[in-house]
């Protein structure tokens, strides 16, 4: 079995009477992991625990075998980008990233080159000599990511890296993060925006009220919630005929019509797909498209964080 990059064992964190995370156990071996949850769910707390910025009130957090809060050599192998970005705005992007690389242990003579390389990776060459206070939100996020990368950490912890970024910059940052994962980095990304995570990874951890609600591949999670009605949209030339063919099945909850399509709500997506395919072949229908509009993070997240979903998940 691959050694865990991050191992969280029965970890809880309280801030006085406020619960940050509660009795979380979790292991991460690699790849891009999306940490998903609404604001205040405990995502940032969990990330800070992994980055060594917080000590757990109970339980243990191990990163690459060491305690990140105690062991400075472990923190050297971590790149953490916090959610906020207003620190030393009077410095230029290059100065800031150089200083932070230097603080991460890169010697003075090489810190500039390491910062330059990281900023170039994030597409910041043209503006890196301008003061950070003049940067747009997207440029700040890129600079922050460059600072996270400059000392070549093995584990990147990115807290809401896409917040406030315009769509073009968002796509670019997503591409960079995925490229870094392909280059061998382990990356934990948090967001409360579902489609951002969906664009980055299929491996998610859903956190709600300080607890891990679900973890794993989004499609596996979706499949495991087999009692949750699953919606399938089928576009074909004779939708009424197809609706009549499928409506009698016991797993079908509802069939609704659109102009050139039907929407089927089912409790058993696998059977439904099989029966739809059989009906199309048998009746020689002209099938134009078949999709699952709720097979995305939004649907999963909404279901999991509802009372019904939580009850199912804990069964």
């Amino acid at each position, binding site marked *: 079995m691959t050694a865990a990059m991050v191992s969280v*064992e029965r970890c809880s964190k309280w801030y006085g009477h406020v619960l940050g995370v*509660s*009795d*979380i*156990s*979790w*292991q991460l*071996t*690699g*790849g891009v992991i999306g940490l998903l949850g609404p604001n205040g769910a405990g*995502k940032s707390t969990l990330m800070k625990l992994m*980055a*060594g*910025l917080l*000590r757990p009130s109970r339980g243990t957090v191990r990163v690459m075998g060491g305690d990140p*809060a105690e062991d*400075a*050599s472990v*923190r*050297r192998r*971590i790149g*953490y980008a*916090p959610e*906020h970005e207003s*620190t*030393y705005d*009077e410095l230029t992007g290059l100065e800031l990233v150089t200083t*932070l*690389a*230097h*603080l*991460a*242990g*890169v*010697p003075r003579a*090489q810190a500039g080159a*390491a910062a330059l*390389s990281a900023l170039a990776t994030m597409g910041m060459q043209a503006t890196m000599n301008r003061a950070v206070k003049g940067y747009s939100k997207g440029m700040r996020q890129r600079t922050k990511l460059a600072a996270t990368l*400059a*000392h*070549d950490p093995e584990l990147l*912890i990115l807290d809401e890296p896409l917040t406030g970024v315009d769509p073009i910059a968002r796509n670019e940052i997503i*591409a960079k993060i*995925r*490229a*870094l*994962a392909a*280059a061998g980095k382990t990356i934990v990304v948090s967001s409360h925006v579902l489609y951002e995570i969906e664009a980055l*990874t*299929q*491996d998610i*951890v859903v956190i709600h009220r*300080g*607890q*891990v*609600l679900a973890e*794993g591949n989004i499609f596996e999670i979706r499949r*495991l*919630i087999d009692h949750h009605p699953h919606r399938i949209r089928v576009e074909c030339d004779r939708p009424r005929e197809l609706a009549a063919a499928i409506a009698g099945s016991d797993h079908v909850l509802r069939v609704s019509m659109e102009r050139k399509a039907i929407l089927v709500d089912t409790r058993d997506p696998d059977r439904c797909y099989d029966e739809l395919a059989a009906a199309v072949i048998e009746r020689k229908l002209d099938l134009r498209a078949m999709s699952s509009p709720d097979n995305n993070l939004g649907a999963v997240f909404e279901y999991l964080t509802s009372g019904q979903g939580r009850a199912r998940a*804990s069964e």
Partner: protein
Amino acid sequence: MIEATSETPAATPVRIGKGVIHDLGYARYAGERRSPSTLWRVIMRHQLSQTWKTWWRWKLWAVGAAMVTVTVGLVIYLSQNEMFEPLRRNGAAVKLIDGLLPYSFTFFRWMAFGLTMTVGSTNIARDRETGAFGFYFCRPVRARDYVFGKLAGMTLAMASLLVVGPFLLTAFRIGLAHDTDEMLRLLPWLGRVLVVGVLASLVYAALPMAMSAVLGRRWLALGLWAGYWVVATGIFAAIGFFTWTPLIALDPGAALGSLAYGLWGLEVSEKAAQVSVTVALVSIGVHVALAIGILYWRVSREAVGAVGASA
């Protein structure tokens, strides 16, 4: 896998995500790494360069200290035979050329107070408020590296105001000696000016930073420091003046003044406004030690205790 809820003690490994992605040529840093024990120097340099960035933080007071140096130097040069009534030696007034040098610390300290208002008193609070603590402590920086680096940086910045000018004036004064004997007699002044300047730099660096660390909010820290230095120390001095003179040493500014006059063998005309060199040194030592202790305590707590997402 959905089974891993918070009630499940056994952790479930998360699988590595698959995708068709290409390495865009990220150039990894593969060189040597500094020992964490040297990171305080990085923080010190960063403190100095960041403080130097704007004209009003440090440069303004550096220019002020330079003007004080030039003005006092001119007065020393032009009024070599004038007497200086506020200070006495063995009951008799001393020459301006001998008394003005320790007295001039008062003016340099105004500049240092200015620097505490623009940088020192908000220094740690700013890092806490903006979240820079996270940038430091998610890297291999320890609380002691941070405290030592910040303290060293601020002490150096303060020394540029409290050591450089007085040292140059002392050298100038020695240069005005009439003969070699007088010059040799005055040479120890260089050591004295360094002692007073360095201790004053430590006081003006450590005290406001400790208050800054305690409050953690820039404007509150600024207000507390200004109130302490302008009002509270004045109250301490008044209590000492009217009751028991050593209590004046509760005011670190008065302790520094007393130290300067004491090292030059001078006494203030109004004796009740001065404490002995020993009491002054104890006061300065206690103030600095307390300030560094508080600073370290707060920083080490904050280093692994930031609250919430944007703390």
